[in-house]
């Protein structure tokens, strides 16, 4: 998927509605050649890697031999999809620099926490997946609940994103929607079925470079045109004197003080704590990339390396939206208000791309978007294949098959996952309201799962019954709150504790409450039930696991050192853009 459904529900939802207006960009031969070369390259990599993908460890975990840099860039790229880029550029046009919270407080602390605190347990336990860890820690029932929800939602989200991307290609380039869906998804199916996680990770690293080099020209040329940051701020204030678009925290003192309709507690506790930590530390789609690292130090360093690049992503995503506010000679409007000759917020990134990039550069920018979509989908199907094969098929259908049988199952599962995604895309084409439900469904599981995994790693008294009932209660309460607001939108004031709260605030507070309910139920049930013997918790829980010392390493080779620098840089950015 383009992969952060919990982080980007608003803009993704907006993008999916994009159907009005004519094409924005027309491509020339050199642009089409650049796109075609990309397809040849990813298929070639798939063919090349097939010969190295023989065992289950190779196919599902890329042989567990990724360096910290490869795992880190792949970890970041699995999240950095095309809809993510376009959606958040649109959000920054609409909300200003508030959108950076999804890249900074909504990502950096969680990524550092994953690297320093949680990664040792994922890695030392030698689990192949997050549901696999839950099985080791809590037992089969918790694993089954987590695996079924993850597998189901992953392929559905993949289909939704496939449809959304095809729609974007139609709007931006005028491409046939069926052509986009089939060509891109079959390409993904071929190279992932051949090379497994190896292929997915290789192409995610490629995508990382393409996205940066394809999108970086927009902020560079935009800042030159605007006269630097101060010129940009002055132009925005001149064009939109009624709003504050360039301060990240100053307007978060009250729900009514900012266009998002959110309070800083929602950003810090809902987004920064529950949603962000839930997504970055327990969503197997991203965690799988780090589990594939070659050793524990590489596994710890991977998310820390990624945090530096994540911090910089607003330069190519948020800044183009702000440049749109400052420089475009017309005003973009909400999707629902688009009239003839008008453009919506969602088109700000393609508009800026077309503003600065001529032939060749345009092809590079479009390739970056396609690559983002394809690698996001590859991430989905490779994670789906792993969870289906190892967490559902092996324990519940066929326990003692050969390794080659499971690899074969993984390959077929990859193709099946893509076909289900295509089916979902066509279903969404007919019934667009499905998108809202599926996106909401995905978010139901993220926040409670974080509570379950966190308690499992840090509290040895947590019991199998506590883990299962806590996860179930958290998920059920999240669904209940969502249904309540769906049935009666005025109830949003209950969930967010303010009558001024808007949709974005609902996601934050619903996540926070469902996490709290999960934690409370897990603690209460655990205290009433019998804990697992301490010897069974070795390698799974803090206090029962001997963590390898890093004292022999020079300071600059220790993950904690680089995590500290990342944290300081993060804080400095908050102060600069306060």
């Amino acid at each position: 998927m383009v992969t952060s459904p919990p982080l980007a529900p608003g803009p993704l939802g907006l993008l999916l509605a994009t159907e009005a207006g004519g094409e924005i960009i027309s491509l020339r031969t050199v642009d089409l050649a650049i796109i075609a070369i990309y397809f040849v390259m990813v298929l070639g990599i798939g063919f090349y890697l097939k010969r190295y993908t023989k065992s289950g460890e190779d196919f599902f975990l890329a042989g567990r031999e990724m360096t910290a840099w490869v795992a880190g860039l792949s970890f970041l790229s699995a999240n950095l999809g095309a809809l993510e880029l376009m959606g958040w550029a649109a959000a920054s046009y609409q909300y200003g620099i508030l959108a950076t919270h999804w890249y900074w407080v909504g990502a950096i602390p969680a990524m550092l926490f994953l690297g320093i605190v949680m990664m040792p347990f994922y890695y030392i336990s030698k689990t192949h997946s997050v549901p696999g860890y839950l099985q080791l820690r809590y037992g089969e029932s918790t694993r089954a609940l987590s695996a079924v929800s993850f597998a189901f939602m992953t392929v559905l989200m993949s289909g939704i994103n496939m449809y959304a991307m095809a729609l974007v290609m139609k709007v931006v380039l005028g491409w046939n929607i069926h052509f986009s869906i089939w060509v891109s998804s079959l390409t993904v199916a071929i190279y992932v079925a051949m090379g497994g996680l190896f292929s997915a990770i290789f192409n995610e690293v490629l995508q990382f470079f393409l996205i940066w080099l394809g999108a970086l020209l927009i902020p560079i040329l935009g800042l030159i045109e605007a006269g630097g940051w101060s010129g940009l701020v002055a132009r925005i204030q001149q064009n939109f004197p009624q709003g504050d678009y360039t301060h990240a925290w100053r307007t978060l003192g009250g729900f009514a003080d900012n266009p998002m309709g959110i309070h800083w507690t929602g950003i810090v506790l809902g987004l920064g704590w529950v949603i962000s930590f839930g997504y970055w530390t327990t969503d197997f789609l991203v965690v799988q990339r780090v589990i594939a690292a070659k050793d524990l130090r590489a596994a710890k360093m991977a998310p820390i390396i990624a945090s530096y690049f994540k911090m910089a992503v607003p330069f190519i995503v948020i800044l183009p939206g702000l440049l749109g506010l400052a420089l475009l000679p017309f005003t973009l409007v909400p999707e629902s208000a688009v009239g003839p000759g008008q453009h919506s917020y969602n088109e700000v990134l393609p508009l800026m791309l077309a503003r600065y990039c001529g032939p060749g550069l345009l092809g590079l920018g479009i390739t970056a978007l396609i690559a983002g979509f394809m690698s996001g989908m590859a991430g989905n199907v490779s994670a789906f294949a792993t969870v289906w094969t190892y967490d559902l098929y092996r324990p519940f259908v066929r326990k003692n098959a050969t390794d080659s049988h499971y690899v074969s199952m993984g390959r077929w599962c990859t193709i099946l996952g893509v076909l289900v995604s295509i089916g979902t895309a066509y279903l969404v084409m007919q019934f667009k309201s499905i998108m809202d439900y599926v996106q909401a469904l995905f978010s139901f599981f993220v926040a409670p799962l974080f509570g379950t995994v966190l308690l499992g790693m840090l509290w040895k008294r947590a019991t199998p019954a506590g883990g299962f009932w806590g996860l179930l209660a958290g998920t059920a309460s999240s669904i209940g709150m969502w249904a309540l607001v769906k049935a009666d939108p005025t109830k949003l004031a209950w969930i967010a504790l303010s009558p001024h709260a808007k949709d974005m605030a609902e996601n934050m507070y619903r996540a926070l409450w469902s996490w709290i309910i999960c934690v409370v139920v897990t603690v209460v049930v655990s205290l009433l039930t019998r804990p697992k013997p301490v010897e069974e918790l070795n390698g799974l829980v803090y206090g029962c696991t001997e963590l390898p010392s890093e004292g022999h390493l020079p300071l600059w080779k220790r993950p904690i050192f680089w995590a500290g620098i990342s944290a300081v840089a993060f804080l400095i950015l908050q102060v600069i853009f306060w």
Partner: protein
Amino acid sequence: MGEEHHIIPVWFFVGVLLLIYGVLILATGIYEFSEPPTTVLGNLRPAIWWGALLIIIGGVYVYHFMPRKS
């Protein structure tokens, strides 16, 4: 990466792709001297220096990570 499998490093593939793209974009930029681009700030010739940048990055990666017989 690839210590056990002796796989060509992903950085080599990155280098090849960027090198090809750099050549194509630079060539387009040179062609634009006869047909100037109509984009904003097109007078700065972004295709020329961006193509050159891609060639440099791609070339460095290809050279450094090219598979060699030991």
